[in-house]
């Protein structure tokens, strides 16, 4: 007998969830009540509906009582809706003939009055029974997955994710906006706590990226537009001109020597402004690609068109220099995206009380990284601005971190890199080194051991937040020094410590344009501005945009080991998506009854997922179901009620409301 010709038969199952529900709601009483509701054929209560016996009970009842619909009253559908839908499917019913009632989070967990809670459960079950009768059979749709992956950002996170995917045989496009990949890690001298040379472990991976047949590397490039949906993204990348043909340049750098500028005049960003570079340059010796680049803001030819072009002469037959290069937009199709856009360091000038930008011998930690580095501006000499070696150095932790005036968050890496710099400064100069900390945070593998080692090396650790770095001298020993005024909270008094050099351990902040990037990829931000993961524990590299994953410090401050682990996880998530080959889409999407649409376009700007477009030929709106997340905004906005949403049709909602109010 077909459904239409007989009364629809509903099975109702009340779950005790152990004591979670059973201790507050009288489940037996709810089941007894439900058994007498119209359409209900069978109603039971059971200790754990999600257990195998619970699910089998549903399947058997479907067959035995020829059930058409099922109501399960248990926990939140977020947890077990999938479980019970599968149980229905195994029992031979369309999985969307299920309605769940949340009598745990919405009832037993938030009430103490047992009688009232039981009555509430009855009301909710009654509403579900009246609603489920109207449910329609729905089909999950499948979409194909483009196996190519876009990785945005060429720091260590992006490099590791790209290599992992490429080694698994997937094609990767790695987009980096700087002229070279390497990111912040390329600027570091050593890495804590093992004191590996940062370049020695990073540059081999950079070369692998350059040589890998599966990786397309685009430097001086930025993503400007993202369209499509999981498995089928269409991404527009703006590629700024390098003014050098990458294939023709062999990296001999003769053009740099030949440049009409005999001395560099432009601030060298790679060296944190501690050195100058020419308009034609290579960011650092191991840059990838190993190709020079011309800075259009500094090059005379590009600015005025009137230069002797000695660089072109030096390049000779290779003809790699092309002043007529233009920016281009390139469109790529990919199935998934890994965002690894990194961080920026806190601008120390925002705290003038610590003297950065006021006293020349106050440095940021990143500047010291360049000073201790053999390829840095001083070839590895840690010196003051006048070229002399410091006798004493103060390192101030938590600059721009854990501070109500700037950022509340802990930047996680500063304690350890401060210790590393303390060790390196001592090694390079023999200076007396003072660390000023709020708390020492050394939770990583080998971190606490490194801290203990530093204590044995004789680095002074002073617990106190430095009030100011100043030059006012109270007595002759302070003359010409930088004085750190600090309350030593272990010794219990205020100290004045004169030093020659101050290092500010600046914290990590989201990139300047994180908000634009967030909008571009349709992902969210945490309160501090770092990108938000889908779940802090169980989906730490996923985002709320399917097929878009996060890696590295763009998601929050982290050190290199954690960054690499996360990059690997993001690559694995992308691989899982690719190897599934197809992805099922939930059918709870909105659709437009085309004959009724007036073409007013009200819904189009409302959609947060850009899923609605306008069909010019038919003058009606159209919803791309692959993009629709079923939020219902357009349904509510449509003035003619033409947009409907599966599982949330007006009749279903009205019947549920009537049910909960016990309204005939």
């Amino acid at each position: 007998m077909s459904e239409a010709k007989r009364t629809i038969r509903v099975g109702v199952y009340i779950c005790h969830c152990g004591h979670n529900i059973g201790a507050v709601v009288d489940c037996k009483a709810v089941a007894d009540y439900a058994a007498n509701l119209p359409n209900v054929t069978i109603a039971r209560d059971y200790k754990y509906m999600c257990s195998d016996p619970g699910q089998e009970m549903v399947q058997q009842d479907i067959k035995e009582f020829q059930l058409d619909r099922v109501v399960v009253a248990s926990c939140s559908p977020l947890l077990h809706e999938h479980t019970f839908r599968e149980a229905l499917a195994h029992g031979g019913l369309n999985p969307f003939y299920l309605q769940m009632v949340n009598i745990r989070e919405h009832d037993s967990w938030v009430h103490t009055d047992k009688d009232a809670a039981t009555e509430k459960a009855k009301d909710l079950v009654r509403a579900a029974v009246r609603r489920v009768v109207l449910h329609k059979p729905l089909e999950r749709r499948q979409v194909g997955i483009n196996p190519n992956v876009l990785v945005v950002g060429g720091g260590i996170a992006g490099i590791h994710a790209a290599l992992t995917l490429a080694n698994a045989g997937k094609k990767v496009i790695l987009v980096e906006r700087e002229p070279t990949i390497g990111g912040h890690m390329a600027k570091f001298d050593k890495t804590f706590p093992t004191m590996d040379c940062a370049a020695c472990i990073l540059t081999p991976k950079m070369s692998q990226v350059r040589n890998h047949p599966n990786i397309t590397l685009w430097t001086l490039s930025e993503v400007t537009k993202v369209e499509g949906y999981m498995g089928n993204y269409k991404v527009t990348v703006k590629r700024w001109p390098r003014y050098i043909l990458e294939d023709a340049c062999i990296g001999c750098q003769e053009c740099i020597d030949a440049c009409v500028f005999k001395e560099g005049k432009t601030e060298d960003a790679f060296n944190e402004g501690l050195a100058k570079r020419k308009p034609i340059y290579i960011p650092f010796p191991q840059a990838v690609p190993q190709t020079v680049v011309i800075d259009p803001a500094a090059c005379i030819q590009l600015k005025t068109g009137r230069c002797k072009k000695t660089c072109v002469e030096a390049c000779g037959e290779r003809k790699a220099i092309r002043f007529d290069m233009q920016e281009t937009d390139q469109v790529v199709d990919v199935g998934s995206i890994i965002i690894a856009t990194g961080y920026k360091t806190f601008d120390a000038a925002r705290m003038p009380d610590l003297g950065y930008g006021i006293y020349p011998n106050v440095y940021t930690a990143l500047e010291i990284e360049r000073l201790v580095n053999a390829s840095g501006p001083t070839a590895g000499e840690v010196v003051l601005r006048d070229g002399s070696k410091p006798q004493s150095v103060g390192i101030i932790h938590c600059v721009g971190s854990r501070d109500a005036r700037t950022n509340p968050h802990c930047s996680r890496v500063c304690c350890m890199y401060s210790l590393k710099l303390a060790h390196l400064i001592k090694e390079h100069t023999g200076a007396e080194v003072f660390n000023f900390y709020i708390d020492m945070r050394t939770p990583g593998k080998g971190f606490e051991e490194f801290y203990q080692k530093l204590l044995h090396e004789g680095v002074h650790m002073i617990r106190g937040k430095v009030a100011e770095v100043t030059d006012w001298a109270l007595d002759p020993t302070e003359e010409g020094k930088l004085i750190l005024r600090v309350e030593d909270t272990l010794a219990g008094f205020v100290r004045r410590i004169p030093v020659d050099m101050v290092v500010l351990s600046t914290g990590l902040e989201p990139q300047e344009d994180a908000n634009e990037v967030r909008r571009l990829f349709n992902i969210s931000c945490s309160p501090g501005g770092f990108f938000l993961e889908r779940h802090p524990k169980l989906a730490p590299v996923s985002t709320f945009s399917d097929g878009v994953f996060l890696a590295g410090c763009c998601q929050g401050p982290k050190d290199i080991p954690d960054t690499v682990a996360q990059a690997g996880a993001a690559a694995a998530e992308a691989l899982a998506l690719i190897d599934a080959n197809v992805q099922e889409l939930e059918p709870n999407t909105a659709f437009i009854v085309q004959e009724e649409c007036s073409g007013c376009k009200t819904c189009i700007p409302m959609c947060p997922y850009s899923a609605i477009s306008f069909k010019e030929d038919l003058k009606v709106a159209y919803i791309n179901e692959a993009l629709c997340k079923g939020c219902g905004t357009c349904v509510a906005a449509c003035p003619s009620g033409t947009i409907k949403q599966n599982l949330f049709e007006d009749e279903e909602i009205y019947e549920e409301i009537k049910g909960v109010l016990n309204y005939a």
Partner: protein
Amino acid sequence: MPKTSKTNPQGYLYFPGCSLKATGAAYEESMLELFRSLDVPVEELDDWNCCGATSYMAVDEDSAFLLSARNLSLAHKAPGKRDLLAPCAACYLVLRKTQEYAKKYPSIKKEVSDSLNAVNLPGMNSVKVRHPLEMLYNDVGLDAIKSKVKRRWRGGQVACYYGCQAVRPFDEVDRPLNPMRMDELMRAAGIPTVDYSLKTKCCGGSLTGTIHDVGVRLNYILLKEAVRKGAQAIVTICPLCQFNLDTYQKEITKATGEHFDLPIFFFTQTLGWALGGEIDKLGLKRCISGRSQVKDWMMSREEVESYV
């Protein structure tokens, strides 16, 4: 003449407070003379009362707010929509604090407005409270000052000292941590300034009268550092700072064996002098310390007439 002036043609009201009528009389005299040189009309607020600062705030906050609110209401009621200048840093702070607290806390707002209504005085938050330093910097402008300089400074370098109250917690007068506007005004008037790291540190405030040793030591630190930086005088914007620094130099000299005899000016004195104010109207004779320098630099016939 460069068109940079944004001064209100109606002029300004000013709230002298107790200091400007007593220990800080030189501040009032020189300020009025300076504004005369600049053709900026200023008028003393009629029927003003105690601003409610210092001990009031600590002992009886409610009364302090009411005292302050009455002054603000008088300014609101005065004809013309004129900003209220508060040269004393303590007055400035308490007037601004009263406005902010009445905005932020409904209970204070209610108490204040009930009391004001009882004496038939209308609202007070529409009045803009200004400090002359910021007003000179923003409304008159450096270019206008530069163009009106009449006398060439032959005195020593000065240290500009801002104190704590005018720049904190409100940041309207200048940047709280590294203020520079007084330095810029002095330089515009041809008076060289030194980098003075202690520019917002404590002058001792009323400690010189209560815990005298501590208060005097703080003054000693300020004086010593100014000298170390090559300053031969200190310029202030607050009557209490000026008083403390000016008054205890002999005592400090005696206690430390280090000789201090620096003139301590109000910024309106040096500025007023450079802009050609009448020498007798700048309160220069009221200086306690560094009297001979003041005479040499600013009061000898030759200096007075050394028009640029």
